[in-house]
């Protein structure tokens, strides 16, 4: 149990998918304009990572090595389709805001990366823990980035005004702002890591 707990917490900080493994930057850049979008994307991706990790860990002995990537894609696409249909049915505004990036979770490098690097080599329990950890790590990173961007770019948090007299920094809400914020955060985290060592 101790071992699988380690798999769970490593995704939060030490192997954070966004800031350490540098995976899944495309959706991170695109959807991190507001906390709601970031949270929606994080939860959707977490769901897909967890269940695709479990299923691939179950099927890893049956899947032939040569065609493993297409098989992973089929598994992942199944869960993405579920996510998208649920989102369309119950959260249509969120679905509209995230747009193409929901179906694009299929090719999200975090999901495929964990399937290839972890779930295909490990037991079911560990894969489940890895999926939960990576999913939460991704969600936390998205919340951090989108929180900063929503606060500076629009002066709001979760759509509510925070300041009275605030001139929003428009550039932070633009795509270039996403690159800026992620780059500066990455530099900051690398600095922290260097200090620790």
């Amino acid at each position, binding site marked *: 149990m101790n071992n699988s707990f380690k798999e769970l917490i490593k995704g939060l900080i030490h192997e954070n998918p966004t800031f350490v493994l540098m995976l899944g930057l495309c959706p991170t850049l695109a959807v991190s304009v507001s906390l709601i979008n970031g949270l929606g994307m994080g939860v959707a991706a977490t769901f897909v990572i967890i269940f695709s990790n479990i299923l691939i860990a179950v099927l890893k002995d049956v899947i032939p090595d040569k065609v493993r990537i297409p098989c992973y894609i089929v598994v992942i696409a199944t869960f993405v389709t579920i996510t998208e249909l649920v989102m369309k049915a119950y959260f249509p505004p969120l679905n509209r805001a995230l747009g193409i990036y929901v179906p694009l979770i299929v090719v999200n490098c975090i999901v495929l990366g964990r399937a290839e690097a972890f779930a295909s080599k490990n037991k079911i329990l560990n894969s489940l823990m890895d999926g939960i950890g990576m999913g939460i790590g991704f969600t936390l990173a998205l919340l951090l980035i989108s929180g900063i961007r929503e606060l500076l770019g629009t002066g709001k948090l979760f759509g509510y005004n925070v300041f009275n007299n605030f001139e929003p*920094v428009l550039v932070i809400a633009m795509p270039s702002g996403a690159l800026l914020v992620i780059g500066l955060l990455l530099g900051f985290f690398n600095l922290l890591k260097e200090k620790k060592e």
Partner: protein
Amino acid sequence: MSNLIVLSSPHMHSQESVPRIMWTVLACLIPAGVAGVIIFGPDALWTIVLATVSAVFCEWLIQVLTKRKITILDGSAMLTGLLLAYNLPPEVPFWIPVIGSAFSIAVAKMAFGGLGQNIFNPALVGRVFLMASWPKYMTAFTRPFNSDAVTSATPLALLKEGKLAQHISNWDLFLGIRGGCIGEVCIVALLAGALFLLIRGYISWHIPVSFIATAGFLTWAFTGKGFFNGDLLFQILSGGLILGAFFMATDYVTSPLTRKGHLIFGIGCGALTAVIRIWGGYPEGVSYAILIMNAATPLIDRYTKNRVYGTKIK
């Protein structure tokens, strides 16, 4: 024999140093600033002071926090602040130059490792950041000699909207009697400073001349009715072309190393400026052109390396 010190070359040193060059460039920029203050009133002076002070303070703060050597007296932070102020409209709210300078120094310069490490010209990064974030304040220009904040568009903006009804004389443009940023308007003061830098050899003619010539040629060719019928002098004298070509494109850190590289850099800047002016969404494109060519500088350097003395000619 023990008190003989053996050193490797160079054995002869020149008097030039980074602080000396920076302070000279600063001195050469002063006439344009004085002219801007005369034309636009005391608000312009406030903007200049705020921008330079906050740039120096920000550099000091970062160097203290990161425990690096304090180098605020080398003039580079002050130069960045001053150039940023010259790129601002005279009557911006007080926090615009402060945030702009802080962004220039913290993100464009110190985050890359300080003086000599930055890829992009810090002052221009600050300007573009402000322009993208608060376009409302960055495009409100004061009318010259009018202290009660009557706004007017720049000549280039009027031209873009097709509203350049009354023709501004080239003489007014040369002296700087028009709406615009603080430091870009007075061409004669800028040219005086630039001439001094050229004579002292601190900048070479390659970048400014190829920059202005290319931008002038392309706008002359494509802005008028039919081809080769544009207003050449108007295009060169309005906007930030002179300030950009002499003082910002020639920044040592962000421009190529060789003469051939300088020419390529200048031509690229000129062409991009012309393209933005003629077909782009903004009336003026000097700052974007220089920044884009800054990004191309490592590539230019790579293909214009001088032959090392003694090696084979290919």
